[in-house]
């Protein structure tokens, strides 16, 4: 009978030494991502259906106060409405060349439960600042990118796609206690 070595996972090892972090922060559930999104988290969403995925999350949480910040507004509020999103609680901000400043202000104001933006070539320092601000204000920060960024800052990196009405959601990376 051969000896079989079972390699424990990182989570099991952490539990053994008592280093398991239990996240008691509130979460917002989402049917397409059953684990839900923890407040104060930085979530990067990539893939061809990233905006629709975000819109569906907003539809499930109509009471959330949202800031939608872009360099130049390309989001179509009418289409959001068609997807069932309540527009009453969404403030749109067209930041132009001051998008980073706008995002910092919006995140630090504490007035919004979710802030959504498109990746407009933010540098590592900007992303880190956004992450800290969102953690402090306990709001979700959604970064919609065409392709996954190499940055270590996002807590959660998701790749979403939809084929024939079926959603495929892959968690590319998780960081922290998410």
């Amino acid at each position, binding site marked *: 009978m051969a000896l079989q070595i079972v390699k424990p996972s990182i989570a099991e090892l952490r539990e053994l030494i008592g280093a398991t972090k239990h996240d008691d922060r509130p979460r917002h559930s989402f049917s397409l991502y059953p684990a839900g999104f923890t407040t104060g988290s930085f979530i990067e969403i990539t893939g061809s259906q990233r905006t629709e995925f975000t819109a569906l999350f907003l539809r499930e949480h109509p009471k959330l106060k949202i800031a939608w910040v872009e360099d130049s507004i390309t989001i179509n509020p009418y289409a959001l409405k068609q997807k069932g999103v309540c*527009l009453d609680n969404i403030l749109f*901000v067209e930041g132009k060349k001051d998008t980073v400043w706008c995002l910092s202000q919006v995140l630090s104001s504490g007035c919004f439960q979710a802030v959504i933006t498109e990746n407009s070539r933010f540098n590592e320092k900007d992303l880190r600042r956004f992450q800290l601000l969102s953690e402090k204000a306990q709001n979700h920060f959604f970064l919609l990118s065409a392709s996954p960024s190499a940055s270590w800052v996002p807590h959660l990196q998701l790749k979403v796609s939809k084929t024939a009405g079926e959603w495929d959601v892959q968690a590319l990376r998780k960081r922290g206690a998410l």
Partner: protein
Amino acid sequence: MRIVCIKLPKHSDAQSIAEIFYRATPQIRLRHNEAIFLEVSKCQHLYSESTFIKRAQITLKRIGITAELSVADDISTALSLATFPVMNKDALPVDALIYYADPLAQYPEQHGRILKAIHLLKSLGIRTIADFLTIPSYDISPRFGPIVLLAYQRLLGQHEIPWNEFRPREVVEESHEFDLAYPPRDLEPVYFTLRPLLDRIYLRLRGRGQRVRQFNIILQQEYATRKSPQTYKVPIIIQLPFVSVKTIFQIAKEKLDAVVQRKPLEHPIIKISLVVTEEAPYLTSQRDLFDQKKEETSESFFHLVSRLATKLGSDGAFFAHVKENYLPERTWFRVPEKSITTIQESHIPERPLRLLKEPRPVPIQDNYLFHNRMQYEIKEWKNPEVLLSNWWEISGGERVYYKLVTHTGDNFWVFKNKEQYYLHGIFE
């Protein structure tokens, strides 16, 4: 009729102060820059006389004015009681006759005659109004002249003064000139002046049932130079209602700091002016005493939106108002405040979540679409839809839209117009 008289200190702008009280009563008369008369009998269901006086005193204190207030049945008595330290009409000194003869200071040429008559009355031992009223009326005109008779009749409650229409100034402007001996060279002293000016602007507009939406701060330097003009004009936009003066002040301070940091002042400042360029209706709301957190969040939200609007322009931060229209570029527009969306159910086919501001020409060859230096192989042409747009526009006329499904999973919304394909949106 009950009249409140506000006797102002010298060099006050009575018209602008009167505008503050326009909210309480539209019946207002002025005695140049010396006194304001408010007819308050119609607002006694809201405030008692003593409450009104206390409110008026607080308001005046807020704008840094110490005034004498009095209440009486007519303008002349109200003015006399505000001027002389007595409690009732009969105890007034005979000098008060000047206010009965010409309460609104409309006939300064008559003042010499009245003063002469007062001097004569005093020499006859008549010291108070009560003494004066003991003289028979038929003796007044031959002995002291018609102007004193007019004052006599006013004392008896005759010759009422008509209430002309009070018109607030069309442009709301407040300014302060600094002492030329020590004009400020930085912004710190300017901020001390800015706050009371904002208070005055706020109260004046509040008097008309309005609030400030946009205003300019104009800083005037002592000299103009070749490099910079004499005046600095800084526009401030207050996007949403219910913003307190404190918040407006913070927004203005931030903006001024930023402007002066970018373009430093070259000379001392001699004058600061605030000119309201756009107003909006003032909407009152009851404060929620039991949910202070909500109140604070709303205030910080209004603060944020106004800061964004001041930096980015009034179109920079907005809410979306959607409406039913077949043309995709006309299905929504920007509104500064939340609006109630009337559409419950959309009868328009699915629209893309990303809509380009201007349709962009895209080449489509051999079932390949070229966009952003990438080529996408088209898998399917779906949902054809024909729309007619205005013929005078670049992409005007008939547009035949298609949803292009590509092998990569990206879905584009393109239309064909005049033998050219345009990309108008992305189903992202």
